[in-house]
C-alpha cells in the first residue's frame, strides 16, 4: 500500500510548534519550581529598567506613573544609543570585534542567568553541592553553550537545546534581566547588496540547507518578526537537518540590525551594564556567500520594507524568530503564576494563533509578524478563562460532576 499523504502533511507546522511548546514547558516548570522561594526577595535590584525611579509601595499613583514613564523614556534612549553604536560598528566593518563580542555576551548571558537559576534551584531543592563543583559545572555548561552556538560540528540538538534554555532562563522574571529587542535606527542600505547581505544580519533568508518538502508546496517563508523592523535575528532552525550549514541557517528577518540587548546584573558591581548581544552569525556568512545560493538570490530584495520573497526561494521552510519564543513564554509564564488552567488555555491560544499565522503565511507569501494574533488570543483567553471558566469548572468539579 502506498503511503498516504497523512504521513507527511503538516510537518513544517509541527516543526515550528514543537520548539515553542518545549520552551513554554520549560518556562512553566521553572516558574512552578521557583515561585515559592523567590516571591518575596530582598530589596529590588537596580537595573536598567529602573534607573531613574525605583518603585516604592508607599508612593502615590501619580508618582508611580511619572516614575514609570521616566524609566521607560530613559530605557528607550539607552537602547537606541547602544543600537546606534552597534550599527556604526557594523557599518565600519568591525566584524571581528562584533563576532567576539557576540561570543562574549552569549557566554556571559548563559553564565549569569543560567547561574542565577542554577543557584535558585539549588537553594530551593536543597541540593548538596559545593561551590567549586558548581562553578566548574556552570563554566562547562557555559563554554559548551558558546561553542555550540557559534561553531560548527556540534550536533544541532545541542544547539537548539541551548537556545531553548537560554530563552527560557532569560525570561525568568525573578532575575532583573530584561530581554529587549532593539529597533534598528539605520535605514536600509541599498548599496552593494552583497556586502550588506553579507554583513547585516538582515532578514536574509538563510541559506538553504533546508530540504524542500515534497508534499507541501506552500511557499511559506515567515520570519516571525514582530514587525518589519523588529530585530529577530537568530531563529531556531526548525528542522533537524544534519547539515553543517546549520549555523548559517539563521535569521529570518529583514532588519539590518538585530540587537538583542540585555541588561545584566553584575553581582560585583552594583550597577547594571548593558550588553547588546547581536546574535547574528551573519558575519560568518561573509566567507560562505558562495555556498549559499539563497543569499545571492535574495540580494536584490534585501532591505526593503515590504519585500516579497521569491517563491522558489521561499520554499525553504518556516522560520520563527527568537523574540517570538520569548514573548510566548512570557505570556504563558505569566499565566502559570495564576493557575494551571490558564496556562493550558493560553498555550492553546498561542498555538492556535501561531497556526493561523502560518496559514496566513501560506496564503500571502510574505513574511508576517508572529506575535499579534497569538498574543491577542492569549490575552483574551487568559481573561476569559480566569473570569468565566474557572468558577464554572471548579464549581462543578469539586461537586464531582463532570461532562
Amino acid at each position, binding site marked *: 500500500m502506498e503511503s*498516504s*499523504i*497523512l504521513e507527511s502533511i503538516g510537518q513544517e507546522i509541527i516543526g515550528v510548534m514543537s520548539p515553542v511548546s518545549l520552551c513554554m514547558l520549560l518556562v512553566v516548570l521553572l516558574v512552578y519550581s521557583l515561585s515559592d522561594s523567590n516571591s518575596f526577595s530582598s530589596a529590588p535590584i537596580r537595573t536598567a529598567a529602573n534607573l531613574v525611579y525605583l518603585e516604592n509601595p508607599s508612593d502615590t499613583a501619580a508618582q508611580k506613573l511619572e516614575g514609570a514613564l521616566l524609566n521607560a523614556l530613559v530605557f528607550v534612549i539607552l537602547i537606541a544609543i547602544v543600537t546606534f553604536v552597534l550599527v556604526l560598528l557594523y557599518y565600519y566593518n568591525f566584524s571581528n570585534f562584533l563576532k567576539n563580542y557576540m561570543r562574549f555576551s552569549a557566554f556571559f548571558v548563559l553564565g549569569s542567568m543560567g547561574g542565577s537559576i542554577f543557584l535558585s534551584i539549588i537553594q530551593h531543592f536543597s541540593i548538596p553541592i559545593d561551590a567549586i563543583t558548581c562553578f566548574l559545572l556552570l563554566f562547562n555548561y557555559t563554554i559548551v553553550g558558546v561553542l555550540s552556538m557559534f561553531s560548527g560540528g556540534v550536533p544541532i540538538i545541542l544547539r537548539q537545546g541551548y537556545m531553548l534554555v537560554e530563552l527560557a532562563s532569560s525570561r525568568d522574571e525573578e532575575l532583573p534581566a530584561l530581554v529587549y529587542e532593539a529597533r534598528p535606527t539605520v535605514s536600509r542600505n541599498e548599496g552593494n547588496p552583497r556586502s550588506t547581505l553579507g554583513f547585516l544580519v538582515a532578514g536574509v533568508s538563510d541559506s538553504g540547507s533546508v530540504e524542500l518538502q515534497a*508534499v507541501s508546496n506552500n511557499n511559506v517563508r515567515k520570519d516571525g518578526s514582530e514587525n518589519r523592523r523588529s530585530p529577530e535575528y537568530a531563529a531556531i532552525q526548525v528542522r533537524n537537518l544534519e547539515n553543517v550549514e546549520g549555523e548559517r541557517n539563521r535569521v529570518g528577518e529583514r532588519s539590518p540590525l538585530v540587537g538583542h540587548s540585555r541588561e545584566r546584573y553584575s553581582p560585583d558591581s552594583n550597577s547594571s551594564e548593558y550588553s547588546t548581544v547581536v546574535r547574528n552569525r551573519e558575519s560568518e556568512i561573509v566567507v560562505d556567500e558562495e555556498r549559499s545560493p539563497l543569499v545571492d538570490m535574495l540580494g536584490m530584495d534585501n532591505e526593503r520594507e515590504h519585500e516579497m520573497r521569491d517563491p522558489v526561494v521561499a520554499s525553504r521552510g518556516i522560520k520563527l524568530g527568537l523574540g517570538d519564543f520569548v514573548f510566548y513564554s512570557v505570556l504563558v509564564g505569566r499565566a502559570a503564576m495564576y493557575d494551571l488552567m490558564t496556562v*493550558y488555555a493560553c498555550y492553546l491560544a498561542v498555538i*492556535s494563533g501561531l497556526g493561523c499565522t502560518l496559514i496566513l503565511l501560506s496564503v500571502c507569501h510574505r513574511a508576517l509578524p508572529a506575535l499579534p494574533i497569538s498574543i491577542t488570543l492569549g490575552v483574551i483567553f487568559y481573561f476569559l478563562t480566569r473570569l468565566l*471558566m474557572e468558577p464554572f469548572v471548579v464549581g462543578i468539579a469539586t*461537586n464531582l460532576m*463532570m*461532562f
Partner: protein
Amino acid sequence: MTVAAGIGYALVALGPSLSLFISVISKKPFLILTLLSSTLVWLISLIILSGIWRAFLPLNSTSWWPFAILIFSSVAFQEGLRLLFWKVYKRLEDILDAFADRVSKPRLYLTDKMQIALAGGLGHGVAHAVFFCLSLLTPAFGPATYFVDRCSQIPFFLVSAIIALAFVTVHTFSMVIAFNGYAEGNKLDQYFVPSVHLAAGMMTLINFAYDGCVIGIPLLFLMAILTLMHCGRMVWRRLADNQRQGIS
C-alpha cells in the same frame, strides 16, 4: 501528597491517552494538529458554556436539579459542536483529497479517516482531563490531600482522576463512532454517541448523594466500556468490509 502522588494522579487520568498519543498520533504531524484544534474547540465550548452559566453561579450545592440542567445543556451544546466539527472535517477531507490528487498520491484511506477521528476524539478527551482534573491537581503536589464528603473514602484527586479516565475513553471513541455514523448515515451510531455522553454526564449526578460515587463511578465505567466495545465492533466490521471490497 508529594510529587509522586501528583504525577500518579495525572497519569491515572492521562496515561492511556499518552500512550495512544505516542504510538499513533505523534507519528503523523497532521494528527497532532487535529488533536490541538479539537482541544481548542472543546475549550471554546467550555468558555461559551461558562459564559452562559456565569450569571447563575455559584450554584446551590444542596439541590441536584440545577446541576442536571447544567449538565444537560452542556452535553447538548457539545454534541451540537461535534456536528459542526464533522461538517468542517468533511470539507477538510475534500481539500486533502484534492491535494492528494495534485501530488499524485493515493486519497485518504479508511484507516486515515479513522485516525483523524481518533485524534479529534483524543483532543476532546485530553481537554476534559486537563480542565476537569489536571488543573485542580496542583495542590496534590504538596504535602497534604483533600477529601470531599460526597466521596469520603478516597481523596478528591483520585476520584477526579478516575472520572477523567472514564470520560477520556468516552470522548475518544465516541468521536470515532460519530464520524463513522455520519459517514455511513448509520442512525444507530449517530444517536448512540449523544446518548452515551448524556448518560455519562448524568451518571456523575449520582455523585451528588452522600457517598454516591461508590455507585456512580462503576456505572460511568460501564458507559466507557460500552463505548469502547461498540467502537471496536464497528471498526472491525468496517475494516473487514473494506478489505473484502478491496479484494473483490
